[in-house]
């Protein structure tokens, strides 16, 4: 029996009542009450409207209007060969595969990892690592003002669970691959990832959202990543949802003293995408690099909402987001930097550049600096423009064809956000995706 969620006829409330009985960990009182608190909050908040300043540029009515099934099957539709296009050439990874957000043991590759490292699916960790979950789950990604996070927390079932104990260097990237398949009706998944990295560790984690078919669904993702002192973590988010899908994703990062994170987002798929990145630089001397590339076409809508919170002194954050917008697509970059009272000597920089390839594409960029400390350096800059005709002419005047010159300029623009990726295999994968995107565009223009 499938559960259907919709705003009509109390669908979310009733759906939850059915869901919570059989949900993973339904026997655990703390989890049960967390879910109940979350659904109560969600019902109270409802989906955000554009009156809400944080959603000013993004209308989620298409989500609010829909009714979604919680898919319970789909595993039979996916085989190992379906995964190949989404794997990173030449990289030995540890890979967890989720189909409609439920773990597939058959398709996952749990290769050997250093001692003490735990990589498994959340539903299983609820049983085996209850203590760690109880201590961390939903402790960072707050839902009191966030409807989508509340919704995820109420309906979370599965996702990636990663635990890296003190002093461990994990060489192999950990790949969380989420595959959506088509159900009878539009469907909803609520992937929930919990990543705990203790002190003095090193790791790279890839979240990857893909679809096998061109169907309507909502991926409502929440990832909590807790990074211990002196640890260095690379996080990659690659979003390749179906052209009709909704993807709402929240990455909440908690950084301890002297930790160093690099967040890379590459958004290409989906009809309506919201990418929330929320690092809290909680200890002294943290470093955050927050880079992203969004490429949209047709009527895609891609909203990037950054909330970079400086809580402690001497932390550096660097944001660089580039957008390439074609067709009638729309991009949003809302970059908040919050410098709390104690965060003296903060050095925060934010850059958002947009390249419009069509007269009908549009982008809204909004920096928002909230500074409560007095000795800080915060800079931001945004540009929106077409391909630089002067640069194009310059290259052509040197003998390079018009098309090649265009490609050189575009590639330089997209590469700017990729070049800081330390995993070459992922960088190459993304480079190919981008090349493909331009190729599709060229084909569409020829027709």
């Amino acid at each position, binding site marked *: 029996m499938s559960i259907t969620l919709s705003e009509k006829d109390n669908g979310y409330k009733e759906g939850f009542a059915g869901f919570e009985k059989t949900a993973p960990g339904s026997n655990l009182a703390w989890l049960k009450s967390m879910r109940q608190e979350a659904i109560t909050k969600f019902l109270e908040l409802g989906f955000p409207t554009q009156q809400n300043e944080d959603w000013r540029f993004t209308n989620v009515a298409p989500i609010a209007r829909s009714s979604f099934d919680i898919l319970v099957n789909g595993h039979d539709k996916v085989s190992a060969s379906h995964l190949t296009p989404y794997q990173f050439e030449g990289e030995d990874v540890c890979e967890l595969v989720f189909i409609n957000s439920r773990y597939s043991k058959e398709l996952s590759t749990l290769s050997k990892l250093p001692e003490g490292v735990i990589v498994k699916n959340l539903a299983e960790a609820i049983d085996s690592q209850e203590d760690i979950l109880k201590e961390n789950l939903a402790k960072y990604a707050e839902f009191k003002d966030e409807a989508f996070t509340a919704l995820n927390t109420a309906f979370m079932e599965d996702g990636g669970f990663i635990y890296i104990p003190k002093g461990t260097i994990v060489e192999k990237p950990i790949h969380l691959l989420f595959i959506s398949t088509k159900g009878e009706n539009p469907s909803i998944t609520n992937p929930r990832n919990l990543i705990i990295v203790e002190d003095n560790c090193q790791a790279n984690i890839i979240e990857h959202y893909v679809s096998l078919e061109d169907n309507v669904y909502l991926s409502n993702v929440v990832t909590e990543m807790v990074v211990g002192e002196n640890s260095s973590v690379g996080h990659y988010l690659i979003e390749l949802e179906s052209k009709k899908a909704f993807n709402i994703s929240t990455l909440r990062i908690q950084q301890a003293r002297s930790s160093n994170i690099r967040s890379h987002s590459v958004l290409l798929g989906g009809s309506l995408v919201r990418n929330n990145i929320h690092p809290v630089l909680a200890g002294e001397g943290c470093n955050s690099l927050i880079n992203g590339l969004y490429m949209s076409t047709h009527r895609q809508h891609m909203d990037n909402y950054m909330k970079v919170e400086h809580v402690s002194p001497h932390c550096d954050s660097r944001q660089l987001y580039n957008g390439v917008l074609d067709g009638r697509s729309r991009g949003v970059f809302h970059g908040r930097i919050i410098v709390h009272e104690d965060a003296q000597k903060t050095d925060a920089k934010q850059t958002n550049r947009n390249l419009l390839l069509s007269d009908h594409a549009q982008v809204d960029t909004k920096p928002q600096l909230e500074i409560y400390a007095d000795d800080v350096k915060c800079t931001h800059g945004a540009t929106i423009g077409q391909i*630089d005709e*002067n*640069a194009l*002419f*310059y*290259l*052509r*005047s*040197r*003998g*390079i*064809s*018009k098309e*090649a*010159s265009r490609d*050189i*300029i575009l*590639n*330089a*623009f997209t*590469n*700017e956000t990729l070049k800081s990726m330390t995993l070459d295999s992922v960088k190459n994968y993304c480079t190919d995706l981008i090349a493909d995107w331009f190729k599709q565009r060229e084909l569409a223009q020829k027709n």
Partner: protein
Amino acid sequence: MLEIKNLHVNVEDQEILKGLNLKVNKGEVHSIMGPNGSGKSTLAQVLAGRDSYKITEGEIIFEGKDLLKLSPEDRACEGIFMAFQYPVEIPGVANTYLLREALNSIRKYHGEEPLKHIEFAKFAKEKMKVMDMEDNLLKRAVNEGFSGGEKKRNEIFQMQILEPKLAILDETDSGLDIDALKIVADGVNALGSPERAFVIITHYQRILDYIVPDFVHVLVDGKIVKSGGKELALELEKKGYGWIEEEKTAANS
């Protein structure tokens, strides 16, 4: 090699070049001098194929071909090189990448094999010595963060690599100190050959102490109003452009 006949050019409905004639043969060095706004850069950009300039009348023949029918890239492949008065910054594109792409694109046009990385590196290294350039300028993004002098030197370096038949230098000497000026002049002279021609557009006669022109033309208000030998440049330096303009008004009245 190059023949410009009765060239009229408009920018945004305003006529900038008003019937310009110029003939350049192989092996010659021409200098075009003129006051600000007289149309020197317009001429250079039109020769390179910039499409924001509208040619309303006249023709340009280059090596027997109708130049105005060629795209900017084909002109470069045919052997035209223009050193920009204001070289463009291209973030994210390495100088060496641009040059290799350009050179190989030109080679391809002539049915030649592309140069391999190593071959190109060796070739570039030789040319860099001539221009007294630091290695890291090759790796840096095209003109990004370059000083004014570095940008100009980079233009001449590109010219060295691409070895054009006709090079048009648009005020490459402006804003250079004397050492940089000498390097630029050396770079030009090093390419000098009976098969090649140069059009040196300049505001000051100073560079002509180092690159000796066969002809000097004075461009005023979109027309060449006087031509002569090297001595004309010296005379201009002494008397200023006002002298020519006065002469012109006198002739017209």
